[in-house]
């Protein structure tokens, strides 16, 4: 579920995700940029994204799993990671309380792409689940509606 959501999140950016393979070597420029951007990263796994001429890297940084996408020129295009709900910006939390007070907050993904950061929040009620996209200012829009709760009852 987590992996699926990350892929869904990244696929919402300006490029579409095709299947990923580990065939091509990563360009030196990209590797250099990655080492500069995330100098303390470990458990690094690269894949190329077929038909897109892009690299997807999964790694751990400060004990958090992050997915990032680079182009062969070494430009960081997008990152995504799970964060705790407490780390949501203040206005996102207040708007969620106002608009989705009856829902249980399940997961939060922070995504940065095209120089903007936004949050994909999965909320669940008795009968349905919804994924909303929240801007740091508290502007919230529905990203995806799901008929059934995505998580099993605990």
């Amino acid at each position, binding site marked *: 579920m987590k992996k699926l959501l990350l892929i869904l999140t990244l696929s919402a950016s300006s490029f579409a995700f095709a299947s990923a393979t580990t065939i091509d070597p990563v360009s030196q420029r990209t590797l250099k940029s990655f080492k500069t951007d995330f100098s303390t990263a470990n458990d690094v796994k690269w894949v190329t994204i077929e038909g897109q001429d892009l690299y997807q890297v999964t790694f751990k*940084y400060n004990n958090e799993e992050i997915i990032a996408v680079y182009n062969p020129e070494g430009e960081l295009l997008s990152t995504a990671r799970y964060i705790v709900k407490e780390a949501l910006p*203040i206005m996102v939390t207040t708007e969620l309380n106002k608009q989705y007070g009856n829902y249980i907050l399940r997961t939060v993904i922070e995504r*940065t792409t095209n120089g903007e950061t936004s949050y994909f929040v999965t909320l669940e009620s008795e009968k349905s689940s919804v994924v909303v996209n929240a801007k740091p200012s508290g502007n919230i829009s529905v990203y995806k509606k799901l008929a059934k709760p995505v998580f099993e009852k605990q």
Partner: protein
Amino acid sequence: MKKRIVSAAIMLMIITSAAFAGEIEIANAKVITSFQKEFVKASDVQWEKTNGLYRATFRMNDFVMYAVYNEDGSLAGAYRNLVSSQLPIGLQTELKNQYSDYWITDLYEFSNNDGAGYNVSIESAGQIIIMKSTNATEWQVVKKIKK
């Protein structure tokens, strides 16, 4: 002894009712209603009134937070102190990679009429830099001060 216990109970009642009355007086009903709706899980709430604005200091999600309200109950701004690991990833890496010789002296999240974002003050042996981010992705230098 019995007299003392009764006196203490009355004193406690007076103190409690005075504190309750004070809160009502400090923050009006509209402000309190808005606050309770926007910060559902707030605890340890304390109100102050300054220059016609109501300021609540409270705890929520393990953070000490501040919310400022207008008389009509509209939220004028909210703030909370952070540590760098609570920043969005882009802001974290920029601080780590470009300002590794600096240490953080102040870091907080804000949300007000000018927008939402983060402010940081960093300091080295010779300089203080104040930066702001409103896109949660990169920092913009607001001021550089030589020591």
